[in-house]
């Protein structure tokens, strides 16, 4: 019976203890793969800091589920090969991950990798994957291994074309690899990949593959090109918006904002459908708006440039002053080190005389006290000099900081004034538009013939004077609110930017000043401590003979 059981368990179910990722396992694995010998001793002595580990290898641990990895904050390389994992999960927090090895597991689906944007090497060798998916965010992918999986259709691999940095792919061992076309297709379709199955792809091979799959590849190429174009256009647009945002006038160039204003205003757009004369007015309005805003945008751009220039001037001044002061201070410290060295030599000589019993401590005492005083003097001197330099620097820069704040405020105020004018002009255009709109619509009021082909709701409105008036007023109100909102946004952003800049400059300077003073005190304390240590050493050195006598006594 027992024999049978053991046999059974051996054959069918060896009693595997499923591994669970926990602190103990992590520590064990980290130590196991950590440094060896003397370094290993130090490493173990210090204890494992999970949040500092960069490489963790959890191999052959029979792990069933990925979990409890979130504390490995600085992880760069994670190996989970040769386990029993069935699902990729709980890796979201390992954002810094560079290399992920999940080979020899039982994974069926690629998923939950979206957060790992820094991933360069991804190994999924020997799993049960049938489809390539959910990897769009892994833009930095360099090496990808999907060999020995269950991919049936080699066309699936055209998914890999989107990775611009991908250089190496291994694919061998999938069911579709029996088809000789697979290799041909991969070589021709993955144009950016240099190595397939760890072998360099020759240009002729690529060519022959290209000839075979011409139609299919052309389709893929076209799609790629289109996507690429869209991507570029989007990037351009975003860069432009970002650039304009620096001068607080994003979306103001061109008719974009006006269009969106009408979009957000159903009444206005409804009335616009009357057409005819109204459309001409609308075009006019649009033109006027564009002109006004172009002026504003241009001014804002210039203002932005002059602001940058101003910031650079100020920064240069402060940086140069800091540089000078650092150089001066370093020289002071070097001078101090020199003086200290001679004192230490002196002290060492005294200690030497004492330990070799040429003099007793009583005889040496005045010398030691002298040396100590001299040391105190030079320390004080050092402190005074360093602090003077720092205080001078702080005071010298203070005034220009104030001046800088004033200049910045002035510039922003000017910008706001111009923008106020521009927005005022916009409001005027708006008022004129609404008046013209009213006039144009009044002419058509109740005119059933002219409004024959208008949509029913518009028709209804146009039949009733009050209703129409209401609608116009509402639309105008809406527009005014929209304009107000945009102006407010510009003003608040500009003001905030200025406040942050000035406050930041002040804060930085104060922090810098405090850091420096802290450093000076810390250095001086350190020096004092060193000196006292040396003195203590001397007084504590009890000569061995006395010690022996004492030892006998006790």
């Amino acid at each position, binding site marked *: 019976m027992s024999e049978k059981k053991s046999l059974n368990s051996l054959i069918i179910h060896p009693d595997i203890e499923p591994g669970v990722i926990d602190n103990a396992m992590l520590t064990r694995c980290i130590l196991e793969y950590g440094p060896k010998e003397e*370094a290993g001793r130090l490493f173990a002595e210090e204890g494992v800091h999970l949040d500092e580990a960069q490489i963790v290898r959890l191999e052959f641990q029979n792990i069933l589920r990925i979990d409890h990895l979130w504390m490995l904050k600085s992880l760069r390389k994670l190996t989970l090969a040769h386990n029993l994992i069935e699902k990729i999960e709980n890796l979201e927090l390992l954002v810094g991950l560079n290399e992920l090895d999940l080979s020899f597991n039982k994974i069926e689906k690629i998923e939950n990798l979206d957060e790992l944007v820094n991933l360069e090497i991804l190994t999924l060798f020997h799993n049960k994957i049938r489809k390539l998916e959910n990897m769009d965010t892994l833009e930095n992918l360099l090496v990808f291994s999907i060999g020995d999986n269950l991919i049936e259709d080699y066309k699936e691999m055209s998914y890999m074309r989107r990775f611009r940095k991908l250089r190496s792919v291994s694919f061998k061992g999938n069911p579709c690899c029996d088809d000789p076309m697979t290799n041909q297709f991969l070589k021709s379709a993955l144009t950016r990949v240099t190595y397939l199955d760890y072998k360099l792809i020759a240009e002729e091979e690529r060519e022959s593959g290209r000839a075979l799959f011409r139609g299919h590849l052309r389709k893929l190429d076209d799609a790629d090109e289109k996507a690429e174009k869209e991507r570029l256009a989007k990037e351009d647009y975003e860069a432009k918006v970002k650039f304009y945002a620096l001068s607080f006038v994003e979306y103001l160039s061109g008719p974009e904002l006006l269009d969106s204003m009408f979009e957000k205003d159903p009444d206005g757009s409804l009335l616009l459908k009357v057409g005819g004369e109204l459309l001409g007015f609308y075009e006019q309005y649009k033109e006027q708006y564009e002109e006004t805003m172009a002026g504003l945008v241009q001014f804002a751009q210039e203002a932005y440039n002059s602001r940058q220039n101003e910031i650079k001037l100020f920064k240069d*001044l402060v940086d140069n002053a*800091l540089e000078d002061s*650092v150089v001066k201070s370093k020289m002071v410290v070097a001078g101090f080190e020199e003086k200290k060295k001679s004192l230490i030599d002196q002290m060492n000589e005294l200690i030497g005389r004492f330990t070799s019993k040429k003099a007793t401590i009583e005889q040496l005492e005045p010398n030691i006290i002298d040396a100590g005083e001299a040391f105190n003097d030079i320390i004080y001197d050092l402190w005074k000099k*360093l602090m003077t330099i720092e205080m001078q620097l702080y*005071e*010298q820069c203070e005034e220009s900081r104030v001046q800088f704040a004033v200049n910045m405020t002035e510039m922003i105020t000017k910008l706001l004034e111009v923008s106020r004018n521009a927005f005022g002009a916009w409001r005027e255009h708006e008022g004129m538009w609404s008046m013209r709109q009213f006039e144009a619509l009044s002419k058509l009021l109740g005119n059933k013939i002219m409004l024959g082909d208008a949509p029913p709701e518009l028709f209804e409105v146009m039949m009733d004077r009050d209703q129409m008036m209401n609608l116009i007023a509402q639309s105008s109100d809406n527009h005014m609110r929209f304009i107000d909102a945009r102006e407010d946004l510009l003003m608040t952003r500009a003001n905030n930017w200025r406040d942050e800049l000035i406050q930041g400059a002040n804060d930085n300077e104060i922090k810098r000043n405090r850091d420096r003073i802290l450093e000076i005190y810390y250095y001086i304390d350190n020096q004092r401590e060193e000196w006292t240590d040396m003195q203590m050493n001397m007084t504590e050195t009890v000569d061995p003979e006395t010690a022996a006598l004492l030892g006998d006594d006790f």
Partner: protein
Amino acid sequence: MVCTSIRPTKLCYSDTTSWQGLSSLVSDYFDYEPLRKPMLLPERIISAYTAIVRRSGNPFELAHVLVSWLIGAGYDAYVVVGCAKRDVCMAIRYRTVCPEIPDESAVIDTPPPSEEEPRYRLVPLPDLTSKYCKDMDQKEAEKQQAELNKIESERLKKIAELEKPPPDEIDGWRTHAWVLVLPGFKGVEEPFFIEPSEGNGYPISAPQYQQLDSIYNNENYYVNLKSCAEGLGSLNYDLNELTCWEHLLAGEPFHRRQLVGIDCADKKTAFDTEKHLDVPTSWIEKLDITADEYEQRYPGSHKVIRYKKVLSEKFSPYSERDGVIKRIIIYEDYALSIPLLTYEWYKNRVDKMLTVKIDHLKREVRETFGIGRKDHLLKHIYSMDAPTTSVEGERTLEFNYYARLDHLTKLVCTGLTFDEYYTDREDRLETRFITYTEGNKFDPKRQVKDIIETYNRNPDIPSKDDIWKKIFHTQENTIEILYHYDYNFVTNNTRFFIKPNLAETGGKILFYPDKTTGYIADPCTKPPRPLDVYYALCDNMESEHHSRKHIRDRESDITGYLKQRECELNEPILFVGLFDTERNDAAKKGWQEQETQKAEVTEREKDAEIDPLAPYLARMFGSGHGAGALTVKEATLVREQCLNDFRAKQLARQNLVQERFDKLNAEYKNKRLWYLANQFILTPEKESAYFALSAELAFQVHTLEVRLTRHRDLSSPRFKALEDYLDKHPLLKEFNRLRHYYRMK
């Protein structure tokens, strides 16, 4: 007339387009002969051409040559006849300062201060010094300075007094000739003089020229009418001014003529109204010099000039064994006996040495090299007393770091130090200073004491991990590491190790916390982990090992370089250009061989002129037939055979061509007929094939036709030529004589 002895000539060498180049060429090219009778004009002036051949001349002859060349180069130049000081007339230079001493004072160009008022300024620190004290100090300093100046000026005066030339009895009467260049051409804006014996230009107010009698060139002769008492600078150099200059020939040279009011349409009236006279053409040959002469430059390949306290020697390239082309020696005294400085310039040396400066006081030699040496040496400064092939002497070597793999820029060696400087190295090493302890009695070799390596900042890693300096105290077994300063920090991290004794631990590096100390500049960071400190220790022990090995390698390298240098200095080799036809011996030999081979070939061809009779003679007498004349009978036979065969051959050829022509022509015609018959039912492809084929055929037919006519035209002259040849054939002499005789009859 003296004007005709000027022959404008254009020289075509690289620097003979400017007056500077031409005048220095003249001064280098000729030996100067002062006038025999200093107050008189020379009795005769030899032609400029002869002067060039003789390579020496008096001032008039030199001025003629120079003016000829200057006019050839496009200047408006004149020979000046007048009086000058003795030093100029006799070409005495030992009272003038040498103009060619290289200027070694470094040029410091300060960037111009920005004009813009800075928008931000640092508040100036309060000035706490006493203004009164400053004033007093300044006054004191000024007083001292004034005293010093006085002493200095007195000294200078004394020197000037000493250096004054001895009195000259005939001062102001010494005849001399030099060159005047007038403005208007080649960017010359002011008139100036050129002294042909020196090759220098002088302003017209130069004091050494005392009187100007007349000027002339190949176009006219002008006599000065004004007094020269106020110096030559006060004269009016506008030659059109008739109150100042009397013209020998009425009128002006062509380029200065004003053609206003002259009717140019009719030649005769123009000639009559114009009233300008031209100097006859020069009687002198063109004043060209050959490229070899130009390159040789100095008469006898060598020229020595004594300046004040300076001796200047010049040599033609390749004339000296070591390739020196110029040497300037600066002396302490006027007698040129105690040298101070020697400058030498070299050319065409295989070791690329360009200049040498020897400082006899400091006993220091400075050699500079061109780029392209194997060891990429650019500059070598060493003490004359230093051992020639040892790194223990005082020397500095500068390298072309860019070409070197190790990016070594400079090496400074002294007895107890060895400093290396690097630029742009990938591992950011900047300097490595090595100090040695002196060898003692037991071990005379010096020992490495400290190695200090400095690295520059790597912006990619935080400053606390970026090593600035590594100091290895090899004799105390300690390592000191200084890290870079962080932003806004005035102290830096340091780390000090006492190296573990590897012999005790069996080669393993063990870590003892009490054998290392360190300072961390930032009070807010955690103390470093022992593991990292341990790694740093291991790294640096490794790096010390590398450095020591490197030092040994470097020393042997440098010793090798120095040996090489010694060799090069002792046995200089000159470089000969590949295309230098004069000196490239190997190539010359090759050319000569080629020439002889070519000559041989032509000789052989000449010998082997084809004798149409040869085959017949061979048939009759065997191949080794001598040159004996044939009897009449034999000759008749041979001649007949030869002519018959020729005729038959011509005929055969004609028939062959005719036959081919007929055949092709028939084919062509057939094709054409076929086409005419079928042209409406042919497919376009067939039609185009037909056209291609028929074009081809037509071409061939045409070719044959041409050959045929040519053959017909040529066959009778050929036959005639053969007959003529046979008539004059030496072997048939007897026969021909007879035939002639009979025909005459």
